[in-house]
């Protein structure tokens, strides 16, 4: 499944909620959709899900236009909104069965599909419980199961981790990874950037409806003339610290726990030279880790964090 967002615009009166953004992603990718509040994330996601139409531009799901052929597009996309299901007097199983019916899945296949989804999302144990009695994490899983019921190629998740406890977040993360392995194209918006960084391989950053950055995490990381390396040795921590401060290629160094974080003037070549020098000097290096800029750092660098 290939998703193309092409020159998408959505205006509400004078407000440009989405202002000419274009990006694309494919199956197997988990894309983090990042932006401050009011940046246009939910609007874009609603357009992908055919819940809204753009003022201009279009979104193509395997060349199927969501504007021109919403009926076809709906079969290709699964949407999980930021709100949780609140239906009264309905069990998890009935809820999923209902959505399977709504997607036109027929009797025998429907039972298998619902059971399969319940098994995948770990809902089999609570299938006879009423939705109202479920915890937020369980409801989130039900919501994900609902979005998956018609086996869509694209999954659009709007703030799926908001309000979840750490355990529920981990469970959700594992489910998303499993879905990615099943070759689903997944786009997730979230405010919890550390969470996104752990599961996303790509990111789209928007602000005030405009696209700021789009690409893999490596691609969108701003290029720097220096890099940071975390070095852990057996013993000699203070010696290592002093040594680093005296080394000409090192800009700065500081002790972080049992390691020394070193800022090197240069890139991988200089890092390799430094480690070689330390080994030659008799330091017993256990770990040397390249510290990359996280999604939070990238986000703070490319956005001003302003609201529309």
């Amino acid at each position, binding site marked *: 499944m290939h998703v193309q967002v092409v020159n998408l615009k959505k205006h509400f009166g004078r407000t440009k909620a989405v202002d000419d953004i274009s990006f694309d992603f494919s199956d197997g990718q988990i894309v983090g959709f990042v932006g401050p509040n009011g940046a246009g994330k939910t609007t874009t996601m609603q357009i992908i899900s055919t819940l809204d139409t753009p003022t201009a531009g279009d979104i193509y799901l395997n060349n199927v236009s969501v504007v021109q052929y919403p009926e076809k597009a*709906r079969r290709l996309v699964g949407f999980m909104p930021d709100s949780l299901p609140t239906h009264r007097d309905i069990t998890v199983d009935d809820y999923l069965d209902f959505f399977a019916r709504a997607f036109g899945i027929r009797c025998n296949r429907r039972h298998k599909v619902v059971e399969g989804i319940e098994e995948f999302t770990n809902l089999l144990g609570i299938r006879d419980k009423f939705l109202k009695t479920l915890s937020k994490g369980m409801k989130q899983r039900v919501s994900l199961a609902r979005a998956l019921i018609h086996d869509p190629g694209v999954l659009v998740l709007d703030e799926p981790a908001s309000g979840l406890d750490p355990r529920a977040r981990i469970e959700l993360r594992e489910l998303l990874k499993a879905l990615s392995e099943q070759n689903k194209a997944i786009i997730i918006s979230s405010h919890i950037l550390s969470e996104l960084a752990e599961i996303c391989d790509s990111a789209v950053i928007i602000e005030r409806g405009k696209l700021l950055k789009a690409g893999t995490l490596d691609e969108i990381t701003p290029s720097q003339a220096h890099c940071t390396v975390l070095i852990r040795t057996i013993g000699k921590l203070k010696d290592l610290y002093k040594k680093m401060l005296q080394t000409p290629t090192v800009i700065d160094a500081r002790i972080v726990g049992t390691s020394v974080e070193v800022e090197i003037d240069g890139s991988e070549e200089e890092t390799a030279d430094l480690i070689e020098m330390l080994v030659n000097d008799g330091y017993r290096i256990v770990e040397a880790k390249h510290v990359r800029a996280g999604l939070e750092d990238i986000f703070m660098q490319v956005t001003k964090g302003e609201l529309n």
Partner: protein
Amino acid sequence: MDKRTIGGRITDMINPIAVKEMRQAVKSRLIIWVLMLFLLIQLVVIIVVLVFSKEFDDFNAGPGVFMTILSILLGTCLLFIPAITALRLASERSDSNLDLLFITTLRPRHIMWGKLVAAVILTLLFFSACLPFMTLTYLFRGLDLPSMFILLGLDFLVVVLSIQGSIMLAACPGGLIARGIRFLFGLALLVAAFGYTIAISGAMLFGGIGSSLTTWNFWGPALTIVACIFLLIGLLNVLSVALVSPPSSNKMIGVRIYTLFLWIASMVIIAVWMSVIPRGRFLEEIIYSWSACAGIGACILLFISICERQEWGLRIRRTIPQNIFLRLPAFLLYTGAAGGVLLSVLIMAASFLIGFFVVIALGKDPDDEFVRMLPYSAFYFISYALTALLIKRIFFKRVTFFGLPIAIALVLLIAGTAFPVIAAFLLKKGAWYDTSELWLICNPFVMLAEYRTFWHEAMLFSGIWCAVISLIMLPWFVKQFRSFKPLKITKTEIEDTTDERELSKVSA
């Protein structure tokens, strides 16, 4: 084939919303408790009658007990079922639950029909739970079976109408306060409907409908009422579908097609009545009433239309017919302000002209009041509506609030009716009796009054105002029709254009 497969195949054919709602209903503790209580009260009533009623000994207890049980049945079905259906829908509407249905293969009309069907099945459950007790009342004497069934049938239709009305009220968007007001309004309507239905049912039963069952005097009004109830249920249904439809959809097409159907159906009903009742004054009055009612309906459509969109989204444009001859009716029926205004005016004009010429065809001269009231009152309302639309277009172009044109029209109406009179009152130093009728010239209801000396001025004023505002708005109508064009994008073009486009690649 196992039972589960047969059952599954049968339920596959039923609207998924109806299946879901029924499952919710049978799992709802509230509904189960109400049903139990309902049965218990009926049982108590029957026992009390059997033990204590003197009428029972006189073999005439039937009608009284039947009405008591009917009151319990209608109390439950007219108050509880519509309320619970509406509350459930309103609760789903306030969350994003309803939105989620729009990304399935279900259409808004399926959703609304599903809700209605589920509530009707629940009503049937209560009616069937009541039938054993109703049958028992037959044994108490004083009742005939046809009367019982006809009354139950009519009351059932009233319940269905109430349910559909509640669904429509619940489908309206709005915040908590608006929903609260609507709930109270709906509850008041349901209580009134309960009162009237009981009163009419009692009157019919004790009036002895059994003896008139073979006459037109019974079946004529009864069938007309049944037809009107069905037409009203349909109207409320299409309105509720329009209310829950996504903003990007062709919301009004169903309402407009149904309005036309309703208009034609009402003509058919009038034609049937004309063929069966003797010619006379009464016949003309029926025609005038029909013209007036159709005009009022078109007027409501006119004011809804001025609030509609003035440009069509891509999703609607892809369904606009390529053929120019089909595009004209599509322009009138598709959602959009200009088409709606034109359709309303056409219905108003046609209703008046049909009424006028039918009366002439009957060999009578059309009534002066009819000729005066209908077209000129229509001129006033058209003028107010178009002026409001003009003001909205000039001063509030960017404001997206749906009801703004109606709000402007209301302000204009209040200003037009109240301010001149207040000014006259102040100028004449409080002498109401000395105030000239001309100060009422902006009041659209002036044609209904008995100000015979003033009619000509009012006709002239409304005619000129309507002509001037129509001329001012004419370029807008033309522009609207010209922009009502279909999209011309084929799949090949989509593929070509996307290849050429420069995309920000997320992929590595």
